[in-house]
């Protein structure tokens, strides 16, 4: 079963990622919300949401019931706004909903397919409904299917597809008509690890192609961290946080994460004598805050003295988890 001499792909972010620039100056922001409120039935689901997004990718996070799906549905024109305004590429959702929908590609969280149609027919249908002429629709459908990686399976009925293939078909229908804004709702839901990696890779490729802007809505912070530059966090219908992940990562230079093999207790004591705070994590992991004059070399000195192996060492990677937990805490003082 094992494949000899295979090098596992490197999981860390390559530093030479394409420097993606925001939308051209002077162009309207991709999404602009001003005091947007949406009421469903008796509940006010979104309250006074004000936010402006112009980057390549933005992650939409928040606990269940925070209003993420409602926000997406409102942008798509399914729910009317009860107050405030929302603009997509400069067009108001109240008056130009159809025009906006023509520019958006949407990949819903739930199942969305017609079981007795083949993938090609289905995506053709969707592309033609988005306004593509029939011949172009067929071409683009095949292109989209090729791009997401559905090979011969595209001629089979969607009802026979596995979960991973259905997700890919959903992605293909979202991009076939060349939207300027792609909204992905939990794209890696239920996917096994290779399929998840493929999906993340596709999202990054689409981001780097610079042909569209992407809104990614997910509960898996890792997904958002690997693909998005900006993040907006909703809680109970309000925006509680908005930040640029690149900036955050750069400012995280004093937090270390370690994985040890050896006597963790002694190591922690020694580190604390240097003045650094540290806290144990699960299974031999340790989180450290480097004190003012302490460098990594000092940590290594301690390790050498105690004959402890530092199996893993990196600056804090869970930037987003921090941000998220802090955002959840802030709004009501307790977690």
């Amino acid at each position: 079963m094992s494949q000899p001499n295979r090098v596992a792909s490197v999981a860390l972010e390559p530093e030479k990622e394409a420097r993606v620039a925001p939308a051209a100056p002077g162009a309207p922001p991709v999404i602009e919300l001003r005091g947007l409120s949406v009421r469903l039935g008796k509940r006010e689901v979104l309250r006074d949401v004000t936010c402006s997004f112009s980057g390549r990718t933005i992650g939409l996070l928040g606990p269940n019931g925070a209003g993420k799906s409602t926000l997406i549905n409102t942008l798509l024109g399914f729910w009317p706004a009860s107050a405030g305004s929302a603009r997509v590429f400069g067009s108001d959702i109240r008056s130009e909903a159809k025009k906006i929908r023509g520019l958006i590609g949407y990949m819903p969280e739930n199942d969305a397919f017609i079981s007795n149609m083949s993938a090609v027919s289905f995506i053709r249908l969707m592309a033609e409904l988005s306004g593509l002429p029939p011949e172009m629709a067929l071409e683009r459908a095949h292109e989209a299917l090729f791009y997401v990686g559905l090979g011969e399976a595209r001629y089979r009925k969607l009802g026979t597809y596995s979960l991973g293939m259905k997700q890919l078909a959903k992605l293909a229908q979202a991009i076939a008509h060349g939207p300027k804004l792609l909204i992905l709702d939990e794209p890696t839901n239920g996917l096994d690890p290779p399929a998840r990696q493929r999906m993340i890779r596709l999202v990054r490729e689409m981001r780097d192609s610079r042909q569209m802007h992407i809104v990614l809505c997910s509960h898996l912070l890792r997904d958002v961290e690997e693909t998005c530059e900006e993040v907006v966090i909703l809680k109970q219908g309000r925006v509680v946080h908005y930040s640029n992940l690149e900036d955050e990562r750069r400012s995280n230079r004093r937090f270390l994460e370690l994985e040890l093999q050896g006597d963790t207790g002694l190591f922690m004591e020694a580190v604390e004598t240097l003045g650094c705070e540290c806290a144990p994590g699960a299974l031999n992991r340790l989180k450290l805050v480097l004190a003012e004059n302490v460098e990594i070399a000092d940590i290594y000195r301690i390790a050498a003295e105690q004959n402890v192996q530092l199996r893993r060492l990196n600056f804090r990677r869970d930037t987003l988890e921090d941000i998220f937990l802090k955002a959840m805490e802030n709004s009501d003082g307790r977690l």
Partner: protein
Amino acid sequence: MAVYKRSYRGYAGTLTPAWSRFLVLYRFARRTQSRSKVQTVFFVLCFFFPLLCLLGIYANSHLSAFAFLGRRAGPFLEIDGSFFLVYLSVQSALSFILTAFIGPGLVSPDLANGALTLYLCRPLSRTEYVLGKLSVLVITLSWITWVPGLVLFFVQGSLSGWQWMSDNLWLANAILWGSFVWILLLAMLSLALSAWVKWRIAAGALLLATFFVGAGFAQAVNAVLRTQQGYLLDISRLVSIIWQNLLRQQSHQPLPVPEAWIAVLILYALCLFLLMRKVKAAEVIR
């Protein structure tokens, strides 16, 4: 050597005009239907009776052709309201059967797995969606009802002369509107059923039920309450009343014509209401 890298491309080409999008639904539905041999054969068979009528009309005007039979026969057909009443009745029965084939599978597959959201997240309104699905039935059924009917009318007109045509223009009108009343009824009912009933066979059966059970109930109500109002439940009776009125057939009607029209319009509204309840992009969870 050139290496072509596979990457995502945006689309910057032309778009089809916005008003024509609902016809996309028609085209795709036809494509699915044309795969069913039974449906295609049946569709062709639906033209059999109009063809027969055509032959009859022709024979009617060319009686000399029958001279060889040695009989001095006069015109054996009167091409008037009653002729077309028979025509409409036959073709409407056939169109009912065709609807039972086509109708139930129109909306339920879209709802079964959440595809409706994808329809509506495109520049397609709920109205256009419904229009598109209606057009599948309306166009198909038109082919076997008023289109041949009008052909028959014009053939008769060309054989009988201009005077006949201008005297009987109301007949053409009647054929057109009579057919439409029936077509719309079938289309609305089957779409509403397709939206609410997942299993296609069940939807087809329910379609049959609304007609036959309705008729049965009508009789029951009439008998019990000793009235004629029960016929409001009998859909085929209502339509027949309307036809007879349009085609100027003087026969005793159990219900006044305006009542019949109102009942039919209420039925349309009801079906539309039921349909729109289900055709929604997103549900509110309370």
